[in-house]
């Protein structure tokens, strides 16, 4: 009986076997890495906004406090976006006819709000509350990154459940005295570890209660 397969068939077979194993491994690796990469999470990718608002200019250079525009952040679940009026309090004096600001003026005139693109978004089934974080010494910087370096606002962290839980399980490393939460580039003092240990007690923070599902999902 003649050979059905040529000599190199064995080699081919071996290659196919090991090759497919390799492919599986690579696929698994991608499956693990991709969901955490910027491609999916959008970290570091600024969105086009109707008005190219620059936190770098307003926060970094002018040093306007976060709360001037996001005035709900201390008391409400929502930090709040500045009303057009708030923009115009200054821009009725400054850059009064800059093209860049045309949409803002139009909005005030027409009463139609400006439609911003959401940068730091979580799914609708996640109920995030700004007030509690601010009051318990979690700084804006901690989640939103160094916005004062952002000409256009971009995501600083994945905001994935994994990332949230990281802090909810062990908040201590991310705490700072509540009075400092609005500071950018905050330099922790030398005895920060001791301070944080005290903060956990003073602020009555109970990590064991912070991983309950309903803390975020209701």
């Amino acid at each position, binding site marked *: *009986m003649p*050979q*059905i397969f040529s000599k*190199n*068939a*064995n080699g081919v*077979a071996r290659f196919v076997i090991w090759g497919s194993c390799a492919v599986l491994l690579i696929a698994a690796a991608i499956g693990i890495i991709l969901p955490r990469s910027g491609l999916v999470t959008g970290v570091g990718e600024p969105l086009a906004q109707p008005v190219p608002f620059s936190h770098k200019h307003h926060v970094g250079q002018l040093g306007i406090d976060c709360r001037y525009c996001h005035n709900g952040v201390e008391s409400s679940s929502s930090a709040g976006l500045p009303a057009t009026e708030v923009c115009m309090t200054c821009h009725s004096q400054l850059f009064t006819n800059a093209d860049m600001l045309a949409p803002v003026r139009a909005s005030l005139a027409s009463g139609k709000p400006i439609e911003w693109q959401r940068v730091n978004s979580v799914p609708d089934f996640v109920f995030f509350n700004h007030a509690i974080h601010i009051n318990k010494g979690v700084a804006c910087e901690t989640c939103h990154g160094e916005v004062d370096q952002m000409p256009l606002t971009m995501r600083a962290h994945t905001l994935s459940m994994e990332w949230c839980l990281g802090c909810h399980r062990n908040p201590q490393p991310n705490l700072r005295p509540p009075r400092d939460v609005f500071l950018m580039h905050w330099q922790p003092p030398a005895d920060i570890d001791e301070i944080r240990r005290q903060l956990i007690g003073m602020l009555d923070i109970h990590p064991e209660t912070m*991983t309950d599902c309903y803390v975020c999902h209701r």
Partner: protein
Amino acid sequence: MSLYGLMAVFADPEALVAAARHMRERGYRRMDAFSPFPMNELDGILEIPKSRLPWVVLAGGIAGAALVYALIWYSVEVDYPINVGGRPLHSWPAFVVIAFEVGILGAAFAGFLGLLAANGLPRYHHPVFNAESFTYARGGRFYLLIEAADPKYRKGVTRGQLTRLGAETVEEVEA
């Protein structure tokens, strides 16, 4: 074209067994027999060493069970401890079930892959296929192969011996 060995074809199993025994007694060592179905007698004659596959299977089983149990333990005790229906975190009776199943799975895979590895399969191209007479097409044919590499192999002599043992045909197989 080097020579791989001599392939003798026998009509029925008994003949093959007899032939194999004779050649063995004549001191041939590098020989192999081929049959459409397993023939226990040959194991003794060819002195096929006892397979270690059973141990591989056992190892596979234990590994599967242990790994999955460890994973479960890690998930409930370390990674995300949750109070589920007031049950203890480490509810081992429930976890054993899964460990058992995965254990069986591991064992089965170990056995199958072990077999392929030990038998060097898949091997699509093999010298024996060069033998004109070698085929399972017409059902029961029983083959005895003496490799040319066998120290006692003498071209004419071996062929003669095989023919005398009642081989229907004896043919040279190229490597």
